[in-house]
Structure formats: structure tokens, C-alpha cells
């Protein structure tokens, strides 16, 4: 990020979690290298395990096994090659593929940022899903019922999304600050409340298309639909730009702003922050509002940006939970979350092509996503596989979210 405004400033990003001897003696390049090394190796490992899964689930090749072992293995390897070729093609092989990757990544990045900003303040926000519901619903209401020119309509809808998600997240923060209710519990429960509320309200005349009986909204007004960036036939829309701006903004917020300093201080030591005169209770509420607002934007990108612009009752999909994985993968750093989101976007978009063209279930992508996270969470395992010396790898701890 462009922050070379002055030299010799402290480098608050470099010690997201824990500390080790190696970091003290290392230069910037090494530091960056280590931050990327483990995720990269985790991806390689996940692809390797994925290949094994493709091979052992290749039923046709197994039938051949008794007669022609070499041929069977060859067929398995060919299956892996085709699957990964199609995965790559589906993610990057054409303008449409790239568009799909970016389109899928946009809400992932926003939701991942939401969880990451919580981690930075020591809060484990499991509620991105619920906040996506809340923000998406607020945006949808504006998109259905407010008649404005697009230039104003879209910003108003997005602000509504921030407010909706922010209130939902801020509620969990307030409950923690005021009554000490653990945010893990409250955010999970608020997910259910939001999901069933959306299911209910989509069937009311407030959102439902006249004459329909489905829990599905009427089409969003043209002026509130998030416009595509490239061309009408490609789905990637301005939520990508919103996501990138959000990355920049959260980076600024955490590392340049005064309240971001408080967020990070409270996340690393609530006690020292309180002694320093910070209002930790307020910070919990505030950061959950910010976190929820980001998730709300992710929700809006699903309600206002997804053709055919009619919204069904499970519009957040699995993004609310993928977000936790993204924040871990991105080490709670905004730029890390950006790359993690693009990676997951590519995997998901490529996975669809892989299923269609190579006949390998798209579920494999979910398995690989899970494997990546497991490898990230177990750096000792990755080190053992690749024989990296401990000093070169980064600290184990990813988050202080629990038990705070």
C-alpha cells in the first residue's frame, strides 16, 4: 500500500500476532516473503491432496486397476491434469473466466475484511452471515422502494447496507461491552435471527413480487442494480471497486487513523488499553459496527449485484463463513484478505468449470479451501513437509479472538 509518506515510522503491520526472533533481524523483503510463503505452500499442499482425492475417486480408473495397473494410474493422472486445467481455465482462461473470478471474489473480500477488522480488535465475529442478511435486506428495501436516479440510488442503497449490517454487528458489540456477553455466542445466535427474519419478511408484501408465493423478492429497480464494470454480458460489477476501496479504507483505518490505533491496542491488550485511558467497551461496539458495515456491503453486493436481481432467502450463501477462513488466510491484514479473496474467488469460479468440463464435483473446491485453512493453521505441519527451518516461518498464532 502507498504509505511511504515519511521514513522511520513504526511498522505496526509487521507484528499482527506474536513475535519471534527472526522478525527482529529480518529486512522488509524477508518479512513479506514469510507472510506469503506459508499460504503459498498451503495452496500447493492443498492442490496435492486434492489431486489424490481426484485420483482415488476416479471410479473408471479403479475398474481398470486389476487388468492394467499402469494404464489405471495413467488415467488417474490424466484425470487430475484435466481437472486442474479446467479449474485454471475457469478461473483465468478467458475474459469471462476472469470476470467470474472477480465477481465471486468481491463479496468474499468485503466479508473477509469484516472478520479481519474484528480479529484485529480481539473479537471473533462469527456473525458476518447475519450482518450480510441485515445489510443486504436494508439495501434491498432501498433498491425496491426508493425511486432515485442511479447516481444517487446506488450510494443511498449502499449506505443503507452499511447501516443495516453495522447495527446488527454493533448490537453484538454492545451486548459484549455492556453485559459481557461473548461475541462468539451472540453473533452465532444473531445469524439465526437474521436468517429467519429474512425468510419471513421476503414473503410479506414489503418485498414479495405481487402474486408470487415464494420467499423471493421482486426485481430490484434498474437504478439500484450495481452496474457491470466491463460490459453487460460479464457479471463483475462495481462491488469489486467497492471491495478494493474498502481494503484501502480499512488499511488506513487500522494503521493510520487514531481510532485504528485504539482498535489494535484493545485487540492486543485490553488491560493496557484501559490503563491508557481508552474506552474499551466503546471500542468493542465501534469495531463491531465497522465489521458489520463491511459485511453489510457484502450482503448488498449479493442483493443488488446478482442477476436476475430477484433475491432469495439464502442470499449470503456460505460467504459469511468463508469470511472467517479468508481473514485467517489473509492474516487479518487488509491486503492479505484481498489476495485471499481473489484466490477463493478463482477456486470457486474455476470449480464450476471444472465440474462442467472435467466431471469433478465442485465440492472438491470446498475441500481444498478447508485444506488450505488447515495447513495455514498448522504451520508446523507445512514446515515439516517442506523442511523449512522454524526461524524462517512466521508465528503460529493467527488470532486472539477466543477467550477475550
Amino acid at each position, binding site marked *: 500500500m502507498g504509505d511511504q509518506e515519511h521514513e*522511520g515510522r513504526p511498522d505496526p503491520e509487521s507484528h499482527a500476532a506474536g513475535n519471534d526472533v527472526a522478525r527482529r533481524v529480518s529486512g522488509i523483503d524477508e518479512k513479506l516473503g514469510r507472510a506469503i510463503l506459508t499460504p503459498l505452500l498451503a495452496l500447493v499442499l492443498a492442490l496435492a491432496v486434492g489431486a489424490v482425492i481426484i485420483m482415488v475417486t476416479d471410479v473408471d480408473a479403479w475398474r481398470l486397476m486389476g487388468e492394467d495397473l499402469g494404464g489405471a494410474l495413467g488415467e488417474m493422472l490424466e484425470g487430475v491434469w484435466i481437472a486442474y486445467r479446467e479449474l485454471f481455465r475457469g478461473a483465468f482462461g478467458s475474459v469471462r473466466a476472469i470476470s467470474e473470478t472477480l465477481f465471486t471474489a468481491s463479496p468474499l473480500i468485503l466479508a473477509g475484511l469484516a472478520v479481519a477488522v474484528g480479529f484485529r480488535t480481539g473479537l471473533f465475529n462469527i456473525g458476518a452471515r447475519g450482518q450480510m442478511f441485515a445489510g443486504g435486506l436494508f439495501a434491498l428495501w432501498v433498491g425496491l422502494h426508493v425511486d432515485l436516479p442511479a447516481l444517487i440510488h446506488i450510494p443511498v442503497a449502499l449506505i443503507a447496507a452499511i447501516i443495516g449490517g453495522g447495527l446488527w454487528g454493533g448490537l453484538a458489540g454492545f451486548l459484549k461491552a455492556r453485559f459481557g456477553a461473548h461475541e462468539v455466542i451472540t453473533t452465532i445466535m444473531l445469524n439465526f435471527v437474521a436468517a429467519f427474519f429474512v425468510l419471513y419478511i421476503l414473503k410479506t408484501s414489503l418485498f414479495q413480487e405481487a402474486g408470487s408465493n415464494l420467499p423471493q423478492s421482486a426485481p430490484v429497480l434498474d437504478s439500484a442494480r450495481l452496474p457491470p464494470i466491463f460490459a453487460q454480458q460479464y457479471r463483475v460489477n462495481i462491488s469489486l471497486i467497492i471491495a478494493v476501496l474498502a481494503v484501502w479504507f480499512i488499511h488506513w483505518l487500522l494503521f493510520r487513523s*487514531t481510532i485504528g490505533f485504539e482498535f489494535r491496542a484493545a485487540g*492486543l491488550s485490553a488491560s493496557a488499553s484501559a490503563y491508557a485511558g481508552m474506552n474499551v467497551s466503546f471500542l468493542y461496539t465501534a469495531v463491531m459496527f465497522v465489521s458489520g458495515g463491511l459485511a453489510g456491503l457484502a450482503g448488498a453486493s449479493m442483493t443488488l449485484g446478482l442477476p436476475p436481481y430477484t433475491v432469495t432467502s439464502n442470499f449470503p450463501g456460505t460467504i459469511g463463513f468463508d469470511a472467517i477462513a479468508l481473514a485467517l488466510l489473509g492474516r487479518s491484514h487488509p491486503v492479505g484478505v484481498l489476495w485471499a479473496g481473489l484466490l477463493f474467488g478463482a477456486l470457486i469460479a474455476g470449480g464450476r468449470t471444472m465440474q462442467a468440463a472435467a466431471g469433478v464435483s465442485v465440492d472438491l473446491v470446498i475441500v481444498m479451501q478447508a485444506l488450505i485453512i488447515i495447513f495455514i493453521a498448522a504451520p508446523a505441519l507445512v514446515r515439516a513437509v517442506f523442511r523449512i527451518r522454524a526461524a524462517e516461518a512466521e508465528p503460529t498464532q493467527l488470532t486472539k479472538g477466543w477467550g477475550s
Partner: protein
Amino acid sequence: MALELRGITKRFPTVVANDNVSLSVAPGEIVALLGENGAGKTTLMNVLFGLYSPDEGQVVIDGDHLELSNPSASIAAGVGMVHQHFMLVPVFTVAENVILGLEPVKGLSLIDRTKARRLVTDISDRYRLAVDPDALIEDLPVGVQQRVEIVKVLARDARYIVFDEPTAVLTPQEVEEFFEIVRGLKDDGKGVIFISHKLNEALEIADRIVVLRDGKAVGEVNPADTSKEQLAELMVGRPVLLTVEKSDAEPGDVVLSVENLVVLDDRAHRTVNGASFEVRSGEIVGIAGVQGNGQTELVESIVGMRPSLAGRVVIAGHDVTEHSPRQIHESGIAHVPEDRQESGLVLDFTVAENMVLDSYYDEPYSRGLRMDWATATEAAQRLVDEYDVKTTRVDVPVSTLSGGNQQKVIVAREFDRDVKLVIGSQPTRGVDVGSIEYIHARIVEQRDMGAAVLVISSELDEVMALADRILVIYQGRIVGEFDPKSVSSTEVGLAMLGSGEG
């Protein structure tokens, strides 16, 4: 017959923690291992216990080479350790704790409690430890818990016993009792290694003193032939001032006034129970007391971190009883908190970030919504230079600094503004001799510049040396006031035990 560490060298990526260190202790001998924090004492002991494998050197016990990098080998060879932080299960009885790991088993898997109790009673009687095998650990005072640790070590037939900073958690009276026990162990033929950074104690208890500095054994002295000054110089590498040099106090107006303060602790006990006192500008008031008599809660309440039940706190004429920590901070308080790692610093933050931890929100460090890190870094660099904080740069995590330098970061941050009242809780706990000297000098300097100073310390020596006036706290009340120039530490020690109460 002896426990010998021969030419131990242990290197870490950036530092040589032990550089060709040799140390031996014979049965019936007490050897003090003296050194500042970070001198390599802990590393050496971790080598002895097989937690680290040394790059060079060996451990020999009674002529047998010890297989290193295996903790159970040292224990089997007869070496025991009493850690600074006790390894006891609070909800278990003494006997249960003692047999953890060496359960005498009867029949299939029933623990033989009778035998366990007898084991504890035997050891306790033999060494006069006065430990009740049936008492629950959580009900026991710290000094007794430490004796349980000793029983544990003896129950494993240790012939060499290592004590890691054993007196850090003890009251002066408990220290005396502890020394008696150690002498008893010696008389029984045990070899004792006593790790400490306290000069007095090493001089009092040891037969031989080995001084460690920067990973090297820089001297071995006989306590009879040395002095505190000489030892301190060996430890620090330069002459050190051990007494606090200060002129007579010139008390001015009352700055801090505490009136009938009542404060509850976390378990809703009235830990501070009607404390009243005043601190004037230009004087240092020391509060002495056995730990747990309300000192912690008293300070927390004064600085706004803990609400009070009754009474008032007045600072410079303003009632601040209901004020927030920030408001109180802004009324001119410099506070060095009791637990610097928990409350004083954000350990994963850089030195610079910690330097502005309680002033970040205002000019010149904050400009509107954004932080001015250039100014903050500059200020941090200036404070690091001015307060002699030893760090390579200000953008390294403060956790990489030694305890003494971490404390100097706090002192620099707190003292570098217009200070009306200084509150120092255990200002030199766990701090090396060189830094103690420095921090004391800075506290006196604040006094001479007209600040009122309140020092709370569990080290009676520190209170005696630093204070112009000593108040004794007992069960949440101020029970005595002494002039340090005309009172003995015994008298103050008695008052700390509540003898003045009618």
C-alpha cells in the same frame, strides 16, 4: 561427588545466551547464581534440565555424564527444581500434589493416599517444613505453597535442588523462614543452587557466589570476601549506586488526598477499608505492606480503574473519585502500574507505539482523525535517548526489550510531561540493578521538580531507601507512619504484620 556444568555454551539465532559457563555445587553446599535478567541464568538451568540442548559442554552428576535434551534424565539423576511460578494444582491437597506424577499405586489403579500422606508428613517433619498433607493448595499462603514445592522435590529423592528466584514472592518474614529451610537442606547434605538477582540474599545464604553477565561467568566470589558494591559492579559491569541519593524533602501543598476510601476487590471483599492519607508536593511517600493488604486495589481506585464504595480521592484540589482513567491521567498523574506487561505495555506494539499509548489521541500525535506517526516516532526516539532505553530501533516490538528497559519505556512515557503526582507501583519489580538505580534517580528527580510521589512496593528495602515518609498498610487501612531516617526495618516489618493494631 558434585553436580557440575562444564563449559556450557548455548547459542540462539541472535545471541549467545551461555558462553562457556562452568558451575559446580557439592553436597552440603549452597551456591548462589547471581545475574541480571537476561544474563543467562534461566538458559543455564534449562540446559541442566534438558529443556535446551547445549551447543557445547556437558553436565556431570556425581561423575556420570548426563544424557542431555531429556528432562526426566536430570530428575532421575537426583536434580530437583523449585520454580518461581509454582506448579501446583490449586484444588488438590498437598499430598495429592506431591504424588502427582509418582503416584504410589495400590492394587490396580487406586492411589495409596495413606502412603502419600505419610510421605509428606515424614519429609515435612524431617526438614521442619510444617506442611499439612490434607490442606488444599488454594487455602495456603504463598510461603507454604513454596514449601510444598520443596516437599515435591524431596519426595523425588533430589540430592541437588535448584531454586529459581525463590524470594520474589515472599514477605520479609517468609524469606527468613525460607532461609532456615535452605540451611536445613544444606545440613542434610543437599547441594543447593540459589538463583537470584538480589545481592543481600546471595550474601546472606550462599557459600559461594557465581556471577553471570551477558552469558559469561564473570566471577566467583566468597561472600566473606566481598561486598554488595563489588557484586553489583560484577553484575552490571560498572560501578553502581546502591543507595538512593537525595536531599531532604521540602513538602509543599497537598496534591493527593485519600479520604476514608473503601474499595472492593474482585471477590467483593473490602480490600481497602477506610484508608486515609495525604501526599504533598516535593515528598516521596512510600507505602509498605505485605502483599494482598489492599495496595493493588488502592492504586487501581486512585487512577480510576476500580470504582470505590465510599470515600474520596482528591487530586490537586479536584475531587476525582468519579472520574474516568483518562480524566485522572490528564489531571497530571504519571502512573507506573504494578504489572507492566499486563497493564503498562501492549507487548506486541512497537516501542514507539507504546511511547504514545496514553497521549496518542491529541496533538501532536493525532491530527484530526489520523495519527502522525512521523512525529510520534521522533518523540519516541527522543525519549529512548533521554531515558537510556536500550533498543536497536523504536520500531521493534517492545516485547523484545529486557524487563528493565520495558520499565524505562513506561517511565519515559509517564514522566515526559507536566507531572503533578507520580504513582509507582512496584516500580522496580523484576528490574535489573542498573535500571533500578536509574529509575530511582528519575523518581527523586520528579520529586525535586515539585511532584508529589507515591511509591508502593513489597520490597521494604526499596521503601526505606526511597521514601521521605513511610506509611504502613494493613488490612486495607493505614496503620502506621514512620520517618525512614529514625526507624529500623524491623519496626516497620512488625507494623506490616498488624502489631500496631490495638
